[in-house]
């Protein structure tokens, strides 16, 4: 369980502070998927930085299974918005970096093989990130976090650089893996479709400084052929309204 | 003596050979002699020789070996007079050496292929030792050589004054020296260019030099020691202990001394050919 209470994050700038996140309260149960959406610059990435232990200076409390964040104890799979690949490691080493850091990957070769295959990286294993296209880099980042079999999965717009069809394949791959391991997931996305398809919970943030406007329990989670359903369309409209701020009094 | 408007630039090092020049400058003897002299101080022979070879100085207080080397290297320099200096072979007081003969197999700090090595060889030879009987340790920098001697890193060392006096004052034992042997390889050199252009001026330099020698002979050391310490870069604490050589009026070096040096150089194959006395010495100034 991830409990976030009164989380406030500021960035230090030269002369002043910039308030990025303001009093975020959120609970994500074990095995839950929380999609986070919000306008550009509202603090979504910042939120993931806190959860993954990258940002250590914040106000409020963030507990994972009742304990403070400690990246070396938890098994956190993180997909960064700019992928976070190591330029000096080839694709294979980048994919297995997490396993290596967490102490060896004996016995996992088959799973690695499988993920690499599914993400279409097989022919690229000995390339360096500098020799990949944007989408290929993103897939390496996805592979790295999946291969780790994380207990918490934090994904920052993980499919943004992928074409529509690859993106759908990846979404399904994610769901498949999630179904198998029930990993608690925070998924930052800017696609309302994606939030509805993948989020069991959808947290909507306000423009900067990010505050939670609304948390929606999503009944449509995992529905196939979502886009031809009417409920989907209604849900999307509702979320759009909330984001636009038309429904302030509702929240 | 006639007026001269060209300056004569002379390079010196912090050694006792240069003292008459410093005194002459300080006491205004050059001016009296009608010559404009600049004294340039150098901290190493290399810098002094570089300045000489690049034409930035006209003459220098130097030694026979350096003069022969310069000649051999294609620079037209002439030895114009002897200077008075002293190179001393010293031993560390704890080295258990009481005579030169005891030096057999011991470490002696020198600088290679220089007047220091030459003097060392001469002192050893005089006592019946060959230069192969001892172990020469090369330490070019004089203060470092002094320090190695004092701290027992080497058993003996050959040093010029004033640091030789410093070593003696700190307990080193004097085994031999160039003046005891009666050799005197210290000389003054001028470039042939300077001799050609301004032989009058050089004559005047010697006039002043001789006056300074006279002054040094007449006056007690206390009279000029502070000047020397300040201008020549001598250690402060040699004040009471330094034994300055008895300065003589400028004269040309003896032929034996010169030939001996050339023999030594040729035997070690340090010069390409053997130079005659006349090739190296110009006796017109101090006849």
């Amino acid at each position, binding site marked *: 369980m991830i409990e976030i209470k009164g989380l406030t994050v500021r960035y230090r700038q*030269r002369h002043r502070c910039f308030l990025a996140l303001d009093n975020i309260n959120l609970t994500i149960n074990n095995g839950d998927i929380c999609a986070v959406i919000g306008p550009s610059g509202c603090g979504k990435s910042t939120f993931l930085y806190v959860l993954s232990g990258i940002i250590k200076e914040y106000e409020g409390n963030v507990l994972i299974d009742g304990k403070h964040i400690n990246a070396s104890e938890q098994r956190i799979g993180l997909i960064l918005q700019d992928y976070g690949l190591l330029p000096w490691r080839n694709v294979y080493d980048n994919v297995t970096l997490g396993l290596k850091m967490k102490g060896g990957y004996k016995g996992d070769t088959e799973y690695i093989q499988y993920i690499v295959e599914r993400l279409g990286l097989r022919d690229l294993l000995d390339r360096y990130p*500098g020799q990949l296209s944007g989408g290929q880099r993103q897939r390496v980042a996805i592979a790295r976090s999946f291969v780790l079999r994380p207990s918490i999965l934090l994904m920052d717009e993980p499919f943004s650089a992928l074409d529509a069809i690859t993106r759908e394949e990846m979404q399904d791959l994610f769901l498949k893996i999630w179904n198998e391991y029930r990993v608690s997931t925070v998924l930052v996305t800017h696609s309302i479709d994606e939030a509805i398809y993948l989020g069991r919970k959808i947290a909507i943030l306000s423009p900067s400084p990010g505050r939670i406007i609304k948390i929606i329990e999503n009944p449509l989670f995992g529905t196939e052929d979502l886009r031809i359903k009417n409920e989907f369309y209604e849900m999307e409209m509702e979320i759009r309204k909330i984001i636009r701020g038309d429904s302030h009094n509702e929240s | 003596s006639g007026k001269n408007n060209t300056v004569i630039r002379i390079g010196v090092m*912090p050694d006792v050979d240069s003292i008459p020049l410093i005194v002459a400058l300080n006491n205004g003897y050059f001016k009296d002699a009608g010559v404009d002299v600049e004294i*340039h*101080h*150098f*901290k*190493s022979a*290399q*810098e002094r*020789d*570089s*300045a000489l*070879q*690049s*034409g*930035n*100085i006209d003459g220098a207080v130097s030694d026979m070996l350096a003069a022969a080397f310069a000649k051999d290297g294609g620079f037209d320099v002439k030895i114009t007079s002897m200077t008075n200096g002293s190179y001393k072979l010293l031993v560390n007081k704890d080295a258990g050496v009481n005579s030169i003969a005891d030096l057999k197999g011991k470490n002696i700090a020198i600088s290679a292929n220089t007047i220091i090595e030459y003097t060392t060889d001469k002192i050893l030879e005089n006592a019946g030792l060959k230069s192969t009987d001892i172990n020469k340790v090369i330490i070019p920098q*004089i*203060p470092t050589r*002094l*320090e190695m001697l004092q*701290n027992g890193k080497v058993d003996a060392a050959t040093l010029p004054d004033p*640091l030789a006096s*410093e070593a003696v004052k700190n307990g080193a034992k004097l085994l031999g020296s160039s003046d005891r042997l009666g050799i005197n390889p210290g000389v003054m050199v001028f470039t042939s260019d300077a001799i050609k252009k301004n032989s009058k001026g050089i004559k005047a330099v010697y006039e002043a030099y001789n006056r300074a020698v006279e002054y040094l002979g007449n006056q007690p050391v206390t009279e000029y020691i502070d000047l020397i*310490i300040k201008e020549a*870069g*001598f*250690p*402060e*604490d040699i004040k009471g202990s330094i034994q300055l050589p008895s300065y003589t009026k400028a004269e040309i070096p003896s032929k034996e001394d010169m030939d001996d040096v050339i023999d030594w150089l040729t035997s070690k194959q340090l010069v390409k050919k053997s130079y005659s006395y006349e090739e190296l010495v110009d006796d017109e100034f101090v006849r």
Partner: protein
Amino acid sequence: MSLKGYFRYIYAMIGVVAVWYVLSIIANLPIIPSPLNVFVNTYIIFKAKIAIHVMYSIYRIFMGLILSIAIGVPLGLAMGYIPRIDSVMSPVVYLLYPIPKIAFLPVVMLIFGLGELSKIIMIMLIVVFQIIVSSRDAVKGIPEETYYSLMALGAGRLGIFKEIVIPAAMPEILTSIRVGLGTAVSVLFFTETFGTKYGIGYFIMDSWMRVNYLDMYSGIMILGIIGLCLFLLIDIMEFLLCPWKQ
């Protein structure tokens, strides 16, 4: 820097002095005098004997460094950016860099005389190669993609130089200046020993020849402090020149 930062500076100094002190006690030789004696000596002689040397040295360091930067940085950047220049100049630099510049003292004296200029040229000859090599490598390290936006804008070489090469290489240029500075100061002892009676390098050498280790260590200490101050100056420069780094 916080107050704590300043304290660390002081701790560091105390550490250096402590090591020195212990060494001096163990050795118990005039060649390693006690720091306390050196401090006292420095205090006594500073105004009368050292200050003037400091002025001269700072002037020479500055001039030598500026000359080295003026030659080394543009050349290094050009070599890093234009492969043709690099392949011609790199072997030249590789060949000339390792040559002991003091061996050219006669040549330098021949061309530039015994005055200030030849001292500054000596410093330059020693430092400029370090700056060339560092600047060149800095440019070579700029990732290809950095140039893309300016290439699409059809920027000329000059534009790319100004907008990308110089700012991207700036942190490393500053590093190379740091390295050059340290070197420039530490070679004073042989660039200042001819044709002058002033300069802290001269002072140290002179004291050494006089076996006056107290004075020598005072000079060394002052030299260290000069260096330290100049280094801090570069740190401040970095802060001002690379605002995007904070």
